[in-house]
């Protein structure tokens, strides 16, 4: 595989200065954070925006008529506009704030699924889904007897679509990830979405890994529901987004009940608020929305095409460096072509258990994830109990990959 010249406009040395945590030392060594697929770090711009909000503007939203309450409401709704712009939504009213993608998918399963899925109805998933896109559907299978079908994962770590049309036949919903959190695989969203629509099914896409890594346009992707998690895209924890086409949201019953989501409540009933507030019961994560908007602006300034180019280059560099150095002792799970994957790299090193590997890497202040990555069916498909996973973001560079490569040699000392 050829490695591109690092002619991307991403200036990692400058970006690293924007992330205070990267100045932290662990065991007296520079922190090498390679777990952004689990949760990314936050730039000062995000942290400052949240502090400034709490220090100058905090009040509950959509309630008070006083100045700072109006300002808090404006900031919260501005964040919705920013997220709508960031993912190509037609209107901010199609953007529902949730806790994360997990809650976004549960919202669709409970609300849309509750109203539209009955015994025998078919939902199509894939073998590479995160538990967040498996368990809500397994719950509906247990509760009301829906049928689940799975698009298989091939030996190359790509979805096997050879039987796509037959799998989709009669389905009501196809729900899948745009980028595997284990294999890094980028899935052919548009192709599957078009086939699903031709079969009369709606399409839900888990964008937890995709949107932080790639320019996202939900209308170009051709999907009906799309979930994003803020804390994986430089934003704070506790906020994410469900995007859905307006007519779908309008027709869906509310998910959680409480304040904010109602128009009127009497002792014998209630009427619901307009979308998107119909789905936002209770006081929302306001400061988190403010932080998320700051994250969006930070990424927009860099440009998502530049972000993708950087992570593509770094992924290719990592695959080349690790395989050149360790040969058959190191096995990368998933596609080896960086064009087919994002910056998420699961690997096996000799027969050292990922837990032990991660423990040894920590001695070099290298943070990688070890485990099943909330994708146990995929682990079984790969024939492993767990993997070690390094994942990259804009603040990682080739030097970080080199530290990882060096640190792997230390594992031989104990386990070789």
């Amino acid at each position, binding site marked *: 595989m050829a490695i591109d010249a690092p002619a991307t406009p991403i200036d990692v040395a400058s970006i690293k200065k924007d992330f205070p945590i990267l100045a932290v030392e662990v065991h007296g060594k520079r922190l090498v954070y390679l777990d952004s697929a689990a949760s990314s770090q936050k730039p000062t711009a995000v942290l400052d925006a949240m502090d400034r909000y709490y220090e100058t503007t905090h009040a509950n939203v959509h309630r008070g008529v006083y100045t700072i309450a109006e300002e808090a409401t404006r900031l919260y709704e501005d964040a919705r506009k920013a997220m709508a712009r960031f993912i190509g939504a037609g209107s901010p009213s199609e953007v529902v704030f949730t806790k994360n993608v997990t809650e976004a998918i549960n919202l669709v399963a409970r609300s849309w699924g509750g109203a539209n899925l009955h015994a025998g109805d078919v939902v199509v998933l894939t073998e590479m889904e995160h538990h967040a896109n498996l368990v809500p559907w397994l719950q509906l299978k247990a509760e009301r007897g829906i049928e689940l079908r799975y698009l298989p994962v091939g030996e190359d770590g790509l979805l096997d679509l050879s039987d796509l049309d037959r799998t989709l036949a009669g389905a009501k919903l196809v729900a899948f990830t745009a980028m595997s959190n284990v294999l890094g695989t980028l899935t052919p969203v548009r192709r599957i979405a078009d086939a699903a629509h031709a079969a009369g099914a709606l399409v839900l896409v888990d964008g937890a890994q995709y949107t932080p890594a790639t320019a996202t346009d939900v209308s170009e992707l051709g999907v009906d529901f799309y979930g994003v998690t803020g804390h994986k895209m430089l934003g704070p924890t506790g906020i994410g987004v469900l995007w859905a086409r307006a007519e779908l949201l309008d027709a869906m019953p509310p998910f959680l009940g409480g304040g904010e989501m109602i128009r009127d409540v009497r002792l014998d009933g209630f009427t619901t608020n307009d979308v998107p507030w119909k789905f936002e019961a209770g006081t929302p994560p306001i400061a988190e929305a403010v932080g998320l908007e700051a994250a969006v602006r930070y990424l927009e300034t860099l440009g998502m095409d530049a972000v993708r180019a950087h992570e593509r280059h770094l992924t290719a560099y990592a695959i080349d460096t690790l395989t050149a150095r360790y040969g058959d002792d190191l096995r990368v799970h998933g596609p080896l072509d960086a064009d087919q994957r994002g910056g998420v790299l699961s690997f096996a090193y000799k027969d050292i258990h990922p*837990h032990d590997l991660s*423990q040894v890497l920590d001695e070099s202040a290298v943070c990688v994830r*070890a*485990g*099943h990555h909330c994708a146990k069916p995929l682990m079984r498909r790969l024939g492993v109990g*767990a993997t070690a996973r390094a994942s990259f973001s804009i603040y990682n560079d080739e030097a970080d990959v080199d530290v990882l490569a060096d640190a792997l040699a230390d594992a031989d000392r104990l*386990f070789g």
Partner: protein
Amino acid sequence: MPGLEDLYREIILDHYRNPRNRGELPVPPAHAETGFNPLCGDEITVYVQVDGDTVTDLRLTGQGCSISQSSASMMSTAVKGRSLEEARAVIRTFKAMMSVHEARLDGDDGGPVEPEVALGDLEALQGVVKFPVRIKCATLSWNTLTQALDSIAAPAS
């Protein structure tokens, strides 16, 4: 800050590389119990043969990290051939050693726990408590054995 040598003691690595009592036992007469560590996906199956009051045989299958596998291996040698009462005492003593950290989190310093039995090689696993995330690795086989012994004591009707 604890170092790797606190965790990966030589006796631990020996049991990891050369696990004792690997394999299965016919069920019945043996009893089998499978335990999972939801954190990392490790799973272990403990086969226990109890005759009268004695744990006459104990075998292990499954996969996991060096800590979970060596802990299971050492457990098998510590428990095999013991009376049920002695086996329970070994489990209690080991779990007490592993719960030092959790006790501190509860604000209960408690002072040193008087060990009921000598743990021998198992004391090498004491270093695990300095790595709280790994305690569940070390206790996986022990919790599974406890479940197996409970099932034997009170068979499902």
